[in-house]
């Protein structure tokens, strides 16, 4: 834990958030503007201000609930909470950290399966070609989630309008991209 975390008297997960993101959960005074402005609040198990409070308590059981929450995955990182926070707390940055930690500790909420599958399919596509290959992304996502029928009607409409590339755009330095992925994944596999 950084000395900064000691000074603020934050231990546990809140301390880790501070160490890795410089976001001080202790600064939240529970005004609730983040939860009021968050477009996904109503779909979350805990709205953003409650996540902040759970981290402030330093209670390991509540911290575990944060890492297992659906909230951290359905958060769109739209940045509205940060824009409206009177204490300028960078909640989206904190959410990125919590998501990565939740994955690392294999605590990701089962209801977030599709959201995470989409992110993984997206990143795999970049890893292989350097750029997003939309058809590849769809096929990979469907394989992961078995949501075979979803959006099936969309593809022919997109094709007709020239919105889908049949052949992926391959960049030249694919080995360089693969190397970036290999290094990033060594620390923390996505």
């Amino acid at each position, binding site marked *: 834990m950084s000395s900064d975390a000691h000074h603020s008297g934050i231990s546990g997960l809140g301390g880790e958030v501070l160490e890795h993101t410089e976001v001080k959960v202790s600064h939240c005074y529970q005004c609730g503007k983040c939860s009021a402005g968050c477009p996904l609040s109503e779909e979350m198990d805990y709205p953003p201000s409650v996540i902040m409070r759970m981290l402030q308590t330093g209670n390991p059981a509540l911290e575990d609930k944060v890492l297992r929450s659906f909230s951290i995955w359905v958060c769109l990182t739209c940045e509205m909470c940060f824009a409206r926070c009177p204490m*300028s707390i960078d909640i989206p940055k904190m959410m990125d950290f919590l*998501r990565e930690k939740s994955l690392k500790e294999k605590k990701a909420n089962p209801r977030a399966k599709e959201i*995470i599958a989409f992110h993984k399919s997206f*990143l795999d596509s*970049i890893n292989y070609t350097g*750029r997003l290959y939309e058809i590849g992304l769809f096929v990979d996502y469907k394989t992961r989630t078995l949501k075979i029928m979803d959006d099936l009607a969309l593809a022919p409409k997109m094709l007709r309008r020239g919105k889908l590339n049949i052949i992926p755009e391959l960049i030249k330095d694919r080995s360089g991209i693969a190397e970036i992925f290999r290094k990033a994944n060594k620390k923390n596999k996505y």
Partner: protein
Amino acid sequence: MTLGFYPGCSLKGSSREYAESVLALAKAFDINLEEINDWNCCGATAAHNMNKELSLALPTRILSLAEKQGLKEIVVPCAACYSRLTVTKHELAEDSALCSAVTESNGLEYTGSVSVLNVVQFLDKYITPNLEGKVVKPFDHKVACYYGCLLVRPHEILKFDREEDPQSLDTLMLKSGATPIDWAFKTECCGAGLSVSRTSSVGRLSGKIIGDAKDRGAETVIVACPMCHSNLDMRRDAINSYLGEKIDIPVLYITQAIGLAIGLDRKELGLQRHFVKVTV
């Protein structure tokens, strides 16, 4: 006049009409947009949600390539790419240890010298000064200018426009002969990256946006982001089923609307590619 150009993945695929209209506009004003050689995806939402290192390394490679190519300014029309590139620049500038870690471990030469322009900054700097004389068919419609999230937030880093009630798109549309309306959903999120994995949420969020635009008499919605466009246009079925009515207000990129105002060909602007027929 030559500027750098980072189209990003959407502009090469599902939002190619955005690229077409940006390039058509640039051409009409004698600006050459030079694509960054061998560019990669910026990592988008997926990278910063899943792996911080990746979310910094991918944009750094892009900025490094632009430097190598001798580009001073790059035009980044996609609001999400613009956000990722600008946030990465900021993070690397603020933290020299982080900067060394990202660049050295990936063998990237990076000094941070390239300026990143979003589409409005590009238009304001290079198009607007010469726009007035070129408007031959004023875009005489009531428009709802929709900014979404990543063009204006986080303000601390982007320092662009106002984060609540921004004005830059409204000003551009006013200069193109349109009447921008006051409305409540300028900066509310469309659902962005949940488009595929949670389409029902997108139907609700984008539904509120389209519903408010319609209630206030907008004839078209103006956007500056391919994610916003695909959610408001391609997801119109989900929107209509959320609203329980059929709304056929088209969604145009700012570059398409200005293109029409200066008399460019509709096909050159890619209007035929939209799901919701462009009737304006």
